[in-house]
């Protein structure tokens, strides 16, 4: 597709835009490349020549040492539990609430929906102290229910599912209604099958949010065996240097980079594979 009327100046501009983008992408990808490539370098080389990468020296030593000192598998396990529980709750309850707001008329609807949007403005940080006290009152500190239940049914997910479900033609629902479907079977038989792409987007967004969540997990899960992946990552240098007699920065750096690589790469892969859904999800808030 050769551009039809490219003047010289226009061509120059295109070249400049390409060059600018190349610089930008390099800046965006370099820290990730540095992390991954350094994690395969021998410890001393990471410290003495941080900019070079010699493929002949690739080693897994950092990874072997890291799995011995960092409780990263525990972190993955706890994050997996959190993902399943929180993801499950979000995917069951938020679309249902979105359906009610998108397709039903009932007294107080606008007020209640406005109220839900208002809770979006409430910073998590504000709730942390009283929530922690509530959890200790309930005996839920260091429990999965304490980790998962607060905030599992969140306002943004309801808002986003309402947008998706509003796109379903009313005739479709009317048909089901005339068939004698109850509200819930209408949802299960007609709404659920057609909102699958929206649900996929919600699932991807929830996955990324839960995987990267830090503030609440670090506050409520202080027992080492209950820490999520991100909390484990936040204590890396303590975990690594605490397990070692001699404090050799070279070895600490290698393990640290191995751990961050192991934690980062899965989420990047998930994103690249499912990015279509993700982009639609994050844009839902901005283009309404």
């Amino acid at each position: 597709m050769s551009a039809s009327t490219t003047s010289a100046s226009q061509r120059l501009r295109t070249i400049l835009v390409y060059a600018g983008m190349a610089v930008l992408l390099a800046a965006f990808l370099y820290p990730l490349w540095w992390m991954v490539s350094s994690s395969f370098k021998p410890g001393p080389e990471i410290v003495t020549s941080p900019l070079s990468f010699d493929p002949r020296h690739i080693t897994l030593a950092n990874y072997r040492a890291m799995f011995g000192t960092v409780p990263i598998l525990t972190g993955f396990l706890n994050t997996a539990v959190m993902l399943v529980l929180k993801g499950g709750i979000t995917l069951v309850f938020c679309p249902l609430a979105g359906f009610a707001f998108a397709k039903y008329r009932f007294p107080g609807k606008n007020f209640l929906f406005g109220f839900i949007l208002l809770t979006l403005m409430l910073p998590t940080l504000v709730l942390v102290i009283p929530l922690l006290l509530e959890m200790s009152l309930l005996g839920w500190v260091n429990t999965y229910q304490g980790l998962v239940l607060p905030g599992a049914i969140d306002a943004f997910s309801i808002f986003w599912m309402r947008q998706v479900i509003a796109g379903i033609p009313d005739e479709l629902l009317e048909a089901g209604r005339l068939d004698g479907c109850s509200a819930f079977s209408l949802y299960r038989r007609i709404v659920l099958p057609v909102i699958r792409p929206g649900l996929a987007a919600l699932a991807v967004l929830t996955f990324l949010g839960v995987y990267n969540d830090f503030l609440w997990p670090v506050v409520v899960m202080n027992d080492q065996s209950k820490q999520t992946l991100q909390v484990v990552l936040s204590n890396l240098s303590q975990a690594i240097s605490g397990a070692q007699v001699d404090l050799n920065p070279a070895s600490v750096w290698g393990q640290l980079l191995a751990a961050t690589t192991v934690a980062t790469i899965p989420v990047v892969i998930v994103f690249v594979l499912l990015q279509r859904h993700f982009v639609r999800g994050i844009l839902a808030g901005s283009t309404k």
Partner: protein
Amino acid sequence: MPMSQLAPARPRPAAGALRAAPPGRSRRRRLPLAPYLMILPFFLSFVAFGAYPLLFALRLSFTNWRGSGELRWIGLGNYTYLLTSSDFWASLANSGIMWLLVVPAQTIGAVAIAAALSRARLRGRGFFRTTLIIPFVTPLIAMAQVWILMFDADFGAVNTALTAVGLPSVGWLTTTAWSKPTIALLVLWKTTGFAIVIMLAAIQGIPDELYEAAAIDGAGVWDKFWSITVPLLRRAIAFYVVIATLGISQMFAEPYVMTKGGPYNSTITSGLFLYNHITTSDLGLGAANSFLLVVLVFLLSLVSVRLLRSKED
């Protein structure tokens, strides 16, 4: 948007509609129960984990509770203590500087980059967009750890590169002058791609004819950017500025991992300041701090929305 994906499913149930509907069997109730049941879980959860702790925190903020013992009412003591405490104002100032370092440049940059991307007919735009968002989805904690190493004063990649070209090395995270910019750089790295994608989506709604008309009137690239792109993106810009302001006013994990607030308290953001009340068990004070922050964040969001809207009318 979703409409197009829904379209194929349409014919089948429509056929079913013809079968049903015996005349006069309208079962429309005055007050439908179902929608209330559907939204009930959110409100139950909000009462349990939103309203209740919020009210509890409000009460707590008027006491000097330290996690155990009786609640002792001290009136506005916590609030007056905070409002006259230089540490509290220093934490707000640190967050304010962080905001200045990140939001204005990032927002303008994102609009400019999105404009360049959308006007030039580029190949591989999908690839660009995907790569731009990758930093946004990486775990913050992991990247903060990587940042510590890259910006290490002695062995870091950045200082090694600087000395290689004859520049002096910098104490990125160990000097008060550079600690904030270094953290701001991580925030910029992580979120700018997200900002660009938001602006790109909004720019696609601007009709090409506007630019063509301006070109006929002899407007240059610069004129078109300031008199067409920026004004028409006001909503998207306002949205992003509010989101970014909310995020930065709560910034906590970055300094928590990278500096623990140091050197010399230069990176104690308002979020980290609030968190520190938990570690020192000053829970009444922490609760009061939370409310001051909420009011501030709310005002900030309101102001940014107002500022960005006023020129429109």
